[in-house]
């Protein structure tokens, strides 16, 4: 008994400590070992839904009989199914085989199993293989994918706002953003509609400050990258946009005098730090500075990196392994987005928007008998506003920041046009469209899939045609859109 125990111990020690005892199967490739055999296998390429062959070699450790047969199989433990094909294993020489006709028909975790038999006994050696897939994007598709990054882009201060990037102004802006006394009745704050834990919007179809408004609340995350602000672009700077809800009776219902009084009474110290001067006597000037501080704070709200960004960067670096972590459904949706969907024609660039406006056939009756004229009315309001970039409050001495305002002109097609929204974080900003009429991303995809051409002008955008997506394609597009939001661990 003692002698047998010693012999077992010696065998175990030998197996662990003396790899030289292992045999050499004589094939470069992935190596698997059991107490009796060493197996090596290799394949030219294993990818989803493509037939492949394996070259296999095996040898017996000293003291064991060589294997006389080999069976090869593969299965998905999580899905509890195997392959759809029975591979044929052909013996090439003693200890050498070739298995043909294998096919792993879906991505995920597979187990390749090699069962070696000898004299009535068998050893089962398994190798886990996580099979992902990167679609065979063409060079043109890759170029389009790359155009949606990098993220985050370089951050530049707003030349029209002397408070932009100023830490003291950012601190003041943050205080003001969460200050209800800024509103006329003292009950509503910016964060009433721009709720931090709701991606700085409110989840409602239509905004509700003091009364219900006509439009959905836009998130202020990434607003610093906009050219025009609001659903209709009636403002040409983030600070002018920050003024609008302050003065709107449906939202915060304040006046320049009220805002100035609030700043003087509650934030004079912070104001002096932010603007390096005492609070001025002119109420309108104080209100505009408050808006500039609010804008400086909102500029800090930049969305994080997303699964798409990782994929995009992997494509750029040519790192297939890293790229393959991006879900196949999202890749298929991306292909629709940049391909047959023509989505990227308007939703282009790192922010996934051209920053302009479009009529996609969404109804723009705000109420029976009353329309929301969108961009068309906004251009007139912009041009008549004392707070536009052509006015005295623009801090940009070069005037170049006002080029858009100087040259924009209303056209008939602008009637009923609304912002082409950026899509970063889109999964977190439901409901959708200017009037919040579509509750989910699936509804948005369905809207474009079944686009009502009767609502589009015959000489409008030719790309706006029903996509007629299959249910699977629609889900793929949703998966892609969902991948444009930062994940929780980022």
């Amino acid at each position, binding site marked *: 008994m003692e002698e047998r125990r010693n012999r077992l111990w010696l065998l175990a020690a030998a197996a662990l400590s003396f790899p030289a005892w292992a045999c050499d199967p004589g094939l470069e490739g992935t190596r698997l070992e059991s107490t009796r055999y060493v197996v090596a296998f290799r394949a030219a390429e294993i990818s989803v839904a493509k037939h492949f062959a394996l070259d296999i070699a095996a040898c017996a450790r000293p003291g064991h009989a060589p294997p006389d047969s080999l069976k090869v199989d593969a299965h998905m433990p999580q899905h509890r199914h195997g392959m759809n094909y029975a591979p044929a294993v052909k013996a090439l020489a003693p200890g050498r085989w070739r298995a043909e006709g294998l096919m792993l028909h879906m991505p995920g975790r597979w187990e390749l199993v090699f069962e070696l038999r000898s004299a009535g006994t068998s050893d089962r050696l398994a190798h886990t293989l996580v099979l992902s897939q990167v679609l065979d994007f063409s060079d043109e598709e890759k170029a389009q994918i790359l155009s949606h990054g990098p993220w985050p882009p370089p951050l530049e201060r707003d030349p029209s706002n002397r408070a932009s990037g100023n830490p003291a102004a950012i601190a003041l802006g943050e205080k003001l953003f969460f200050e209800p006394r800024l509103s006329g009745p003292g009950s509503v704050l910016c964060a009433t509609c721009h709720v931090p834990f709701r991606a700085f919007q409110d989840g409602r179809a239509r905004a509700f400050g003091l009364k219900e408004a006509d439009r959905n609340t836009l998130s202020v995350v990434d607003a610093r990258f906009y050219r025009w602000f609001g659903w209709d672009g009636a403002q040409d700077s983030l600070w002018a946009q920050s003024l609008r809800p302050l003065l709107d009776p449906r939202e915060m219902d304040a006046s320049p005098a009220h805002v100035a009084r609030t700043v003087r009474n509650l934030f004079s110290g912070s104001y002096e730090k932010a603007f390096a001067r005492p609070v001025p006597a002119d109420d309108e000037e104080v209100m505009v500075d408050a808006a500039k501080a609010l804008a400086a704070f909102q500029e800090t709200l930049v969305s994080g990196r997303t699964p798409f960004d990782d994929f995009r960067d992997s494509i750029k670096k040519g790192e297939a392994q890293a790229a393959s972590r991006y879900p196949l459904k999202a890749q298929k949706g991306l292909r629709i987005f940049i391909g047959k969907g023509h989505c990227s024609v308007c939703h282009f660039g790192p922010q996934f928007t051209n920053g302009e406006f479009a009529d996609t056939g969404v*109804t*723009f*009756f705000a109420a*029976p*008998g*009353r*329309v929301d*004229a969108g961009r*068309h009315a906004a251009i007139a309001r912009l041009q008549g506003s004392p707070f536009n970039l052509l006015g005295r409050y623009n801090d940009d001495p070069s005037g170049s920041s006002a080029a858009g305002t100087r040259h924009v*002109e*209303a*056209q*008939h*097609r602008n*009637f*009923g046009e609304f912002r082409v929204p950026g899509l970063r974080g889109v999964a977190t900003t439901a409901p959708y469209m200017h009037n919040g009429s579509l509750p989910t991303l699936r509804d948005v995809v369905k809207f474009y899939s079944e686009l009502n*051409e*009767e*609502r589009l*002008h*015959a*000489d409008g955008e030719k790309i706006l045609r029903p996509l007629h997506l299959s249910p699977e394609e629609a889900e793929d597009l949703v998966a892609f859109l969902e991948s444009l939001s930062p994940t929780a661990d980022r």
Partner: protein
Amino acid sequence: MRALLAVLLVSFTGAGDAQEQPLPIFDAHLHYSHDAWEMVPVEQAIDILRKAGVKRALVSSSGDEGQQRLYRAAPDLVIPELRPYRSRGEIGTWFRDDTLIAHLEDRLKKYRYVSIGEFHLYGADADLPVPRRMVQLARQHGLFLHAHSDADAIERLFRQWPQARILWAHAGFERPERVAELLRKYGNLWCDLAFRTDHASGGKVDPAWRAAFVQFPDRFMVGTDSYTPERWHYVGGHADWSRQWLADLPKDAAERIAWKNGETVFGSLLQPH
């Protein structure tokens, strides 16, 4: 006394300015289709036209019921034209749809129209059997054709019926030089300027367009193009915008383009039964 006279003169002149009516508009491109009836009821649509200072309007509707409703409510204001679409979705298919002819014949028996249109027809499609038959019907009933077409299709329509009278919708979105070329070639061609903004900017008329307007002041009309119900609420804005750029033209040309051409060409076509 002299001072008093001066004050009186100023007051009189001022009163005269205040009483000056805005330039009337003949809106040559309106639709009142099946999707509009509920959103913009007949009374509201009529009210919109009157408030906009629209003297008359050439109205068609997919389904052909809408403009008949408007016409019944305001025959002094609405001039009906027959659109060859039973629903607006037929824009891209009607010219190959044989069943359409029976629809047109049926409507022409029941109602009065001045025109068939606005229809969308491009290039060689104009010579397909259905458009050819439609042209024959227009000829038979003495109707205008209101064509949303390229220049090629316009020329094909004239080849089919050299005496045709055609209102060229949006003037085909062609350049002013090309529009003028066709106006020179075809004496029975008129143009509507609906959904275009390239002929005027900031109230100033583009020089190339000005040349066309001055050369052919009796061949242009303005129009809103209410292709969705919402755009009925743009009729007033469009009329104001039109008055703004028309003010940059000689008065006679402005009045012709604003309303006189429409009134002259279409106003007398609706003869009583």
